Each structure stands twice: as C-alpha cells, then as structure tokens.
C-alpha cells in the first residue's frame, strides 16, 4: 500500500477545460502517490479521457495547476509529458496503422546507430522480448498494425507505454479489447509496476476489475468529481450508485 503522507507524485488542482460550451472537465482535483493505482470511473462522456489527456499533454487546461513531485510544471505538449516520464495508453491507442509493431513501439524514441541511422534489428529484438511478456501469442512484428486484431493492437499500445521507464502511467481502458488471458497478464503487469513504485491512473468501466486493481477510486460525472474513496472502504454497490446517481452515499451518511 502506498504511503500517502509523502509528497504526491502528481497533483492536479482545480483543472478545467471547455470545448465550445461543453465543460468537459470542471474544476477537478486529484492526487496520485508513488506505488498506487488510482481508478477513474464514470459514465460515457464524464470527462475521464479529457482529464488524463491534460496530464499527458494532448490538451492544455483552461485553468488549474499540475505539480509533479511537488513542483509546479507546465505540460504543453506530449513531448513535455514524456520528459516528466508520463506514459499514456490512449483509449484510441494512437497507433500509426501503416507501420509495424516495432516502429509503433519505438515511435518518437527510435534506437539509432552511432551514424544516426535507425537500428531496426535492435528495435525488433527488443520488441520481441517485451511482447513475449505481454502477449506470448504475438508473432507478427513486421506487419502493419492495421492488419492486427483489436487486442493485438492494444498489446502494442501497452508495450509502448511500459517499455520506457515510466514513473507515471496512464491507462485509458487498456483491457477493453483483450481476451481473458491477456487481461490477466495486464493485471499482473499493473501489480508488478505498482511494486516498482510507479503511480498508475487506470480508467475502466469494469467496476469489479477496478475494485480488485485500484487502491483508490475517483468517480466523475458531467466533468465533475463525485467523490474519491479508498477501495477498502467502499463496496461495488457504493461505486455503482456514485456513477449512476452522481452522489456519494458516504457524504449522506456523514450528514
């Protein structure tokens, strides 16, 4: 269990963003400590993906501040996020369909030879190694990813995020397309990364999976946070009612 008395790895404070008139994220705050998995739940369009895209540099927030290890930072592009060791598995996977798995895995961080040319052999060998851990049935390294199944594509996106020594890992519905066995392997991977001290933000609609993987759960509705609870303190029904009703039953109990 993560030690939550230390400085958080990530603090997002009072974050808002609007698209036209839609307040996709509305004054949201959250914190993430090293070695913990924070779950983000909410109905479709609640603002989960938009919130994490602000942390990964895909969007710029209208208001709010982000602190990494207590220091305020400006994340204005995906390049900035990578500099802070923030890695993201996007819901849309963000793969270049015309390139093969190896090219996608190393996109933006290719291994080059001393002369500055790409070292395809080295990259392919690394890809083979890491894919063997994630998805042992995956053999089609040098085919365009357009030719892969949804789950295989998802494996490539996961491999890309975990390969480069992330400190903060964002996973937006990483197992939506995976089979039972592959989902289990991702769950084991999350446990292992957690032990290594990464902070992980996990988004999923599978409440049972979230109850078993996450240390804390944040529920969003219409761009706002309904509540954040330690998983140990709530039942799956509590969470479901937070998602559906948009109110926190524990608030009522306290009142």
């Amino acid at each position, binding site marked *: 269990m993560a030690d939550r008395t230390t400085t958080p790895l990530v603090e997002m404070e009072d974050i808002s963003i609007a698209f036209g008139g839609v307040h996709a994220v509305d004054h949201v705050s959250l914190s993430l400590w090293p070695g913990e998995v924070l779950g983000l739940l909410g109905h479709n369009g609640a603002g989960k993906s938009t919130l994490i895209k602000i942390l990964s540099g895909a969007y710029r927030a209208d208001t709010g501040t982000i602190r990494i290890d207590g220091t305020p930072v400006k994340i204005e592009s995906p390049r900035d996020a990578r500099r802070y060791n923030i890695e993201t598995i996007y819901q849309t*996977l963000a793969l270049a369909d015309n390139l093969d798995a190896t090219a996608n895995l190393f996109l933006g*961080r290719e291994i080059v030879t001393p002369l500055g040319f790409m070292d395809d052999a080295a990259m392919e060998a690394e890809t083979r190694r890491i894919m063997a851990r994630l998805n042992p049935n995956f053999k089609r390294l040098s085919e365009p990813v357009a030719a892969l199944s949804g789950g295989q594509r998802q494996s490539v996106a996961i491999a890309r995020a975990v390969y480069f020594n992330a400190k903060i890992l964002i996973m937006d519905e990483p197992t939506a397309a995976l089979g039972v066995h592959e989902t289990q392997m991702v769950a084991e991977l999350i446990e292992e990364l957690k032990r290594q001290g990464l902070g992980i933000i996990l988004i999923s609609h599978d409440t049972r999976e979230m109850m078993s993987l996450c240390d804390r759960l944040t529920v969003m509705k219409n761009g706002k946070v309904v509540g954040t609870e330690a998983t140990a303190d709530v039942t799956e029904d509590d969470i479901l009612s937070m998602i559906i009703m948009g109110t926190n039953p524990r608030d009522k109990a306290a009142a």
Partner: protein
Amino acid sequence: MTDTAAGRAPAPPRRSFIQSLEVDLRLVGMIGAFIVLCVMFDVVTEGRFLTPRNLFNLTIQTVSVAIMATGMVFVIVTRHIDLSVGSLLATCSAVMAMTQTWFLPQVIGLDYGNPLIWIVTIFVGLFVGTAIGAFQGWLIGYLTIPAFIVTLGGLLVWRNVAWYLTDGQTIGPLDDTFRMFGGITGTIGVDASWIVAGLCSAAAVVLMAMSRRTKARHGVPLKPVWAEGVMMLIVVGAIFGFAAVLNAYEIPSGAVRRMFRERGEAVPDGFVAAYGLPISVLLLVAIAVAMTVIARRTRLGRYIFATGGNPDAAELSGINTRLLTVKVFAIMGALCAISAVVASARLSFHSNDIGTLDELRVIAAAVIGGTALSGGVGTIYGAILGALIMQSLQSGMAMVGVDAPFQNIVVGTVLVLAVLIDIIYRRRLGVK
C-alpha cells in the same frame, strides 16, 4: 517500408516463382507496363522508339520531373500536396540564371569560366529553393493553412516572381560547366560508364548480401539462396543493360569532327565515340538513393510515414509534426532547385515558361508510382518509374504523331486508370 505488405501477405504452402523472389508485385506490374508501352511504341514507329538515341533522350527528359517526384512522395505521404513545384523551379532557374550571367561576372567581376561561378550559382539556387519551400511549410505547419491553398497561391506567386526578376526575358547562354548538368551536354563517356555500372552493381550485391545476413541473425525467415541469386542477377543485368544502352548512343560524326577541330587535331580513321551515362542521370541516381535512405533508415523518414499514417498518433508520440511539415516542404524546395539546374542546363538558357505544368507531371508521377493521396504510403523508386512511364507515353505519342490534344487526353486518362488499378490492387490484398 509500408506498401511492402504485399510481399508479406499470408504465404500459401506452395510458393510460385514470383513469390519465392519476394519482389514487390506493384514494382513488377509497373515495369511490365513500361515494357509493354515501349514495345508497343517500337512496333508502331517501326523500330524508332527502342533505339539508343531515343532511350537516351527519354532518360534525360525524365530526370527533372523524376527528381521533384521523389520529394513529392514525402509531401503526399504526409497528406499534403505541392502545386507550386513548377513555379518554384522557374524562380530558382531565374535566380540562378541571373547569378551566373549577371551578378557573378558583372557585379562581383569573376572571369568567364571561373569554376566559382557554377558552384556559387548552385548554392544560391539551393538556398532560394529551400528557403521558399520552408516558408511554405511554415505557413502550412504552423499557421495551419491547407497545403492546397498555400501552394496554389505559390503556383501564381513564384511563376510571376520569376517573370518579374527577369522581365520575362530569356537569359543565356549559361555557364559551360553549369550546362554539364543538362544531359547530352555532360556525359561521362564509355569507360567511366562501365566503371560506374560495375561499382553500382557491386554496391547492390553487397547490400543484398548484408541484408540477408542481418535477417538471418534475427531469425527472420529467408528466401531460398537460388531466389537471392536470381534477384542479384536481375539487378546487375538491369544496371549493365542500362549502361550498355547509353554507351551504344554514338556521338554524331559532325560533333566528333568539331571536337577534334577545337583541339586542332584530325579525326583518326574509324574513330567512334559514344556518350555514356549523363551526369544528370547520375545526379538522379544519387538523389534516389539518398531519399530512399531518408525514407527507410532515418528518424525523419519514419516520422514522415508515421505522420501520414496517423497524424494524431504521431503528435501524441512526441513528434513535432509542425516542424516536420516545414522539413518536408524544405526538402521539396531543395529538389525543385536541383531540378531547375537540370532543366535550365538542358535548355542551356533560362526561359520564362520553364517548368510550366511540371506540378501536374510530378504529382502524376508520384501517384502512378503508388503514392496514396490518403497518406502514409509511397516509395521513391515508384515515383521515378512513374515519371519514366509518363515521359515515355508523352514522347512515344509525339513520335507516333498523335495530335497534341490527344496526347494530353491520353495522359490524363492513364493517370486516372493507374489510380483505379492501384485501388483494385490494394483491395485484393486487403490493405486500405
């Protein structure tokens, strides 16, 4: 790197001859189409098409468009278009013509024939082309004006900048050394051509062997040794065949007599000389190799294809796609400048209408060569072959005596048909 999916489609248990060779089927198709075209024209013209002289001319006429087509591959792969290449060529040509006939000799005072003239001229041309290309790329990448609009504007602007600079006048004659880049005015002769062919063949064989070794080391399935040997033979045969054709084009006896008279000698009995490889063709080969290396072996090339395949994914992977756009258009501009050297050197002067309609030929060459307008797919060698097919169609029809309007009707129709065939081909293979 992208459309080679064809070669790796799920292999049936029994492999045919072509499959064992693992060649790009599209490449085979294009070469086949080219050969059919040549034979057809040769039959109709009663043997005048497939002569060393005509093939030599065909080659040097193709160079200028082919050079620009390699750059257009990058532009189209990143989902852009460049309609300004012909006009940009004219501006570069005008600036270079003025640099070598007026600025350097008259303002700076360099002597006639000073080697600095052609060197400085080419540098100035390259600088102008690259700068204009980069500027257009900046408008497209950073100010997010669509490439179609920016370069449509450029089509008008640069054509008329060239006109304004030269008052619409023809400028010439150009520097003697500069004119060596034009084709027939600059060839390396028979012996050097054989040597170049030998070196190119050796390089090709070594590269193929090395690639096989690398594949073997990483456990990638290899094609049979005999297939590898056949491929090497085909490549070496093609290189030497090409050199042999150009070496067979003899310099007319009048020109030989003039050469000897200039040196104050008499022509020896039975003396024959041939042109051999033109310098412009060597330039094209060098550019083709460089652009292929960029496309396949460098990060820049990887980012170009990734951005074409999925711009959002490229951006999210930390690629600076705006700067990439500037680079792609800067490369295009530099290639326009090189084409301007070749085109004006071939004419031996700068004319006001140089490069007119080249944008259409260049785009057509890239597209016939398999570059998909939807982005992410295209090859350098395809674009060059596309340029060669277009040019042979055009000069073949001229030789047959087809009326000018019909020539353009045929070229336009072929362009549309080529894209249709490409779409059907891709659908058969199950790629998009």
